[in-house]
């Protein structure tokens, strides 16, 4: 999967989870600041991503932006 395909899928998962328009989700988008997502929202998004991409996101590193997520997935692939 290319980086932009990963991003598209991640974007759709985030938009669905947070009831947002996909357009408001960019690589630079910050979960807390731009999308008013709290830690539980992020847990749910991670869960969906783990299921859909068949990866394990086992990290203590904070996931702050959409790009953090995309990097994780592409690193595991």
């Amino acid at each position, binding site marked *: 999967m290319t980086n932009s395909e990963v991003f598209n899928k991640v974007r759709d998962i985030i938009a669905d989870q947070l009831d947002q328009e996909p357009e408001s989700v960019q690589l630079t988008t910050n979960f807390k600041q731009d999308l008013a997502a*709290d*830690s*539980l929202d992020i*847990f*749910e998004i*991670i*869960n969906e991503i783990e*299921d859909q991409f068949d990866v394990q996101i086992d990290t203590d590193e904070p996931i702050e932006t959409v790009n953090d997520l995309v990097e994780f997935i592409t690193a595991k692939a």
Partner: protein
Amino acid sequence: MHIVTSAMTVPENVVTNDQLAEIMPTSDEWIRTRTGIRERHIATAESNYSLGLSVSQQLLANANLDATQLDFIIVATMSPDYATPGEANRIQAAIGASSAFAFNINVACSGFVYAMHLADKLLQNGHYGIVIGSEVLSRLVDWQDRSTAVLFGDGSGGVLLKGDEAAAPVVDLLSLGDTDLSLKAGGEGKYFAMNGRAVYQFAIREVPNSIQRVLTQAEMVPDQIDWVLLHQANARIIESVAKKLQLPPERFLQNIADFGNTSAASIPMLLHQAIQAHTIQRGQQLVLSGFGGGLSVGTMLLRY
């Protein structure tokens, strides 16, 4: 088996989010948005035994049943007053249930559903048994630790069950053995300690799967369930499960705002309130699902 009647008892003392914010760095807004909890009842003079006893007495009075007609008393709890004697045994003596055997079980927040499954196996046609979920979690809470202190409350709920010829309720019981100890209480640390992320993700993943397995076995679709009674751990978990099952959130009963997480007591308390309010009607299909420490899940499909 079927439920004859239900009852609940909670400690008198109510502690609000604002009161907690006075003794630890938290806020009503944070607690409400992360968990849905507004207040909880905390035992002062009450004990796990006294709460469970009150429930038992109400059950017998409601049904106009003599204690000598009970075959068994099961109390699901993770916060017993003593390692022994168990609450079930003490209640048995106090109410004069001279024909009943009695025991506690501990499956944390899944305890009530596991106890209901046991009761179904133990009940003979036309016979009676009591199943109670009862907790004084406040004694397992570190009131300096805001990550856990805001979550838990005390209370007790129970049902009087009668054996009948109906088919056994479909159940799904799951154990995931918590190798990393992501949800623990008691032991060397004494207090609740939780890896919030691991526990949250366990719940939102495994509970819908468990409910789905029960429905598949019962050859039903989610829309045929009238009411879902999930363990009241966190309102966000309940919303997430509703979304996963593609069911309207209104079908998921809640009282977490008033009582917090009362572990094994949460489902029977919720059940009792909904029965009292006539929200739950005879003949309706209920899905009860407890989940948490173990890590465990227990789901039961039950017709009221």
